[in-house]
């Protein structure tokens, strides 16, 4: 077991480090450390503006969110096994010929992934605060407690979504039932007590950071254990369904999309989304859930924002998260499945960008709901322009930097650094402008010009690169 785990871990490291070099990959956590270290110096300033509990919720929610986005193993189920393990070059594949059950194999894979993300993100982030603590006259107790509670937040988010996605893989109705029950329980507690009270239970680790107790720690650990245990019980690595026959959709769908140049490739993307179930699963777990969580957290910092602050901040965040739709579209199968046909990489990327464009209806609908509920319907159009401009800008940046492998390339420290150095200022400037005047949100449309240029240069770049069959 341990040998298998260690081998998988080593393999994960080598897979990334051979792609962009040991140093480029090893520097990734160093970069996260540096960001946290420098961010710690802003703490006294932020603390003057914000209550400790609210600040704790904001920080912990980010790591809960990361856990939420990482934890959807369950929806992928057998597909993860096929896609990740289906490559004969991977240890996990060869391990299938050993007397090890697929459930154990999958468990190794999950724990390895958790530990990997932990080392890449959580640990360096906390170390940044720990090292910065003496410079900002902060007791070492706080960074150490933060390390504990942030780890709990990350694991809670991960386990909640692991369970929900495993339930989803078994029965979609059961998932909707569980989600409805959670929402009703949250609403009832909010009405009976207060939304802050309800949220503090939803974000137990944040509460624990503000008022630490051993009983609270025990409850948090127990919750993680129960969620993880149930996830593994519900998770099924096996496809028990009998051989299914499907109607030919490619001809009719590409006919409907014939106004597009790459209609066949776009139709293929939609068939992938539809038949894999990943389209709905990812929309719920990687889009709706995280954004609802951000929305909820933002309602607590509302007092620090202008009237339209929530809507515009959510528009920008939706834009950034919506851009990750491109990552889903690149993960169905390897391009080597059809690269031997007369196709350029740029044609495949361009088709995915078109599919991406159609899928931008998802953030638009989400913003419509937010606008209606938050009473900002008058600024709906502004927020849509803002969101889509950010989303397309980020898409172009990803295409330029990562081509068809955004899920892997983002761990190249150079790529990640460029990504955050370009994205960060853009987001800050846009938020600043919209806070000055809602009408300035329309200015964000200007970002489509550099986006278009980046996309074009991305096409050129990837067409001239030697395709390695990732």
């Amino acid at each position, binding site marked *: 077991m341990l040998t298998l785990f260690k081998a998988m871990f080593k393999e994960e490291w080598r897979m990334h480090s051979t792609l962009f070099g040991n140093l480029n990959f090893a520097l990734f956590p160093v970069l996260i450390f540096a960001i946290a270290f420098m961010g710690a110096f802003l703490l006294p300033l932020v603390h003057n503006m914000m209550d400790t509990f609210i600040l704790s919720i904001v920080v912990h929610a980010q790591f809960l969110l990361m856990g939420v986005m990482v934890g959807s193993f369950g929806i992928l189920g057998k*597909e993860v096994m*096929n896609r990740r393990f289906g490559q004969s070059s991977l240890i996990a594949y060869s391990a299938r010929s050993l007397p090890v059950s697929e459930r154990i194999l999958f468990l190794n894979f999950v724990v390895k992934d958790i530990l990997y993300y932990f080392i890449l993100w959580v640990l360096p982030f906390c170390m940044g605060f720990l090292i910065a603590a003496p410079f900002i006259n902060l007791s070492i107790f706080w960074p150490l407690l933060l390390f504990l509670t942030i780890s709990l937040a990350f694991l809670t988010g991960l386990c909640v979504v692991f369970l929900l996605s495993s339930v989803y893989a078994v029965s979609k109705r059961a998932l909707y039932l569980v989600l409805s029950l959670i929402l009703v329980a949250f609403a009832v507690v909010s009405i009976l007590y207060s939304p802050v009270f309800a949220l503090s239970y939803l974000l137990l680790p944040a509460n624990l950071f503000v008022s630490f107790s051993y009983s609270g720690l025990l409850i948090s650990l127990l919750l993680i254990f129960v969620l993880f245990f149930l996830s593994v019980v519900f998770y099924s690595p096996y496809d028990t369904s009998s*051989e*299914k*026959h*499907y*109607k*030919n*959709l*490619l*001809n009719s769908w*590409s006919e409907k999309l014939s106004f597009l140049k790459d209609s*066949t490739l776009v139709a*293929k993307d939609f*068939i*992938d989304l539809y*038949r*894999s179930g990943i389209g709905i699963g990812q929309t719920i777990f990687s889009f709706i859930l995280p954004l609802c969580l951000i929305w909820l957290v933002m309602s607590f910092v509302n007092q620090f924002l202008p009237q339209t602050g929530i809507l515009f901040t959510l528009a920008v965040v939706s834009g950034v998260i919506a851009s990750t739709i491109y990552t889903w579209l690149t993960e*169905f*199968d*390897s391009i*080597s*499945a*059809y*690269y*031997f*046909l*007369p*196709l*350029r990489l740029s044609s495949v990327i361009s088709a995915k960008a078109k599919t991406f464009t159609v899928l931008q209806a998802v953030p638009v609908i989400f913003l419509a709901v937010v606008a209606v509920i938050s009473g900002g319907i008058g600024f709906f159009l502004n927020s849509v322009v803002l969101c889509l401009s950010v989303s397309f800008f980020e898409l172009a940046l990803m295409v330029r930097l990562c081509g068809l492998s955004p899920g892997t390339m983002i761990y190249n420290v150079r790529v990640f650094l460029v990504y955050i150095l370009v994205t960060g200022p853009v987001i800050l400037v846009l938020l600043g402008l919209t806070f000055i005047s809602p009408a300035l949100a329309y200015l964000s449309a200007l970002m489509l010009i550099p986006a278009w240029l980046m996309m074009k240069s991305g096409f050129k770049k990837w067409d001239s690169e*030697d*395709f*390695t069959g990732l």
Partner: protein
Amino acid sequence: MASVIRTDNLTKTYGELRAVDSVSLSVEKGSLFGLLGPNGSGKTTMIKMLTGQIKATSGSAEVLGHDSLKDGIKVREVVGIIPEQETPPSFLTSSEYLSFVAKIRNIEGIEKKADWWFDYLDFADKKDVLCKDLSRGTRQKLMFAQAFLHNPEIALIDEPLINLDPVMQRKVKNFLKDYVKAGNTIFLSTHILEIAEDICTDFAILHKGKLLHTGKVGELKEKGVHLDDFFMDLLERS
């Protein structure tokens, strides 16, 4: 005979590794050319360079008069290719995959052509099944069908008989022989020497990226030398 594939000092390096090392060869029209060699000898790299899927480090290559290095798309338009791994897109059915290939290649009347292949390779019952749910053998049949869907003058095929049962292997071998008799050319990459001896007219032996020998299978047969003995002997001496 006119040569339809020609390489001159074709080389591909990955850092220190010379995957293909200054290979110069010529394939005549109407031949069934076998590129033979042990695992890792550079056969698949050769096919990928010839079809512009990867760029050569140096040297030149031409397929049907098109420069493989500069115009890989044109080469891939005119040839048929069976790649090394049988991995058609997961969520398309077999018939959708053939439609997909036909649309990319602008092939008319695909239903009739696809049905012919489903019947010929005996997998019509799998045409509405998702590619990810197909057995390896059926996937290989599908990859075989897509390569010949547009009746290419040349097909570059990488281990096309792997995963096929003996009955199907016989059928495929007969198809390839007939295809060549009709004036077309096959560039076959394989390490299974019995297959090469059975169907190839010409052959080349690649080892550690270097071309060790080119010759005609018929000439060996006339001398009473088996291809596998010749191959082993050559490798031992190299």
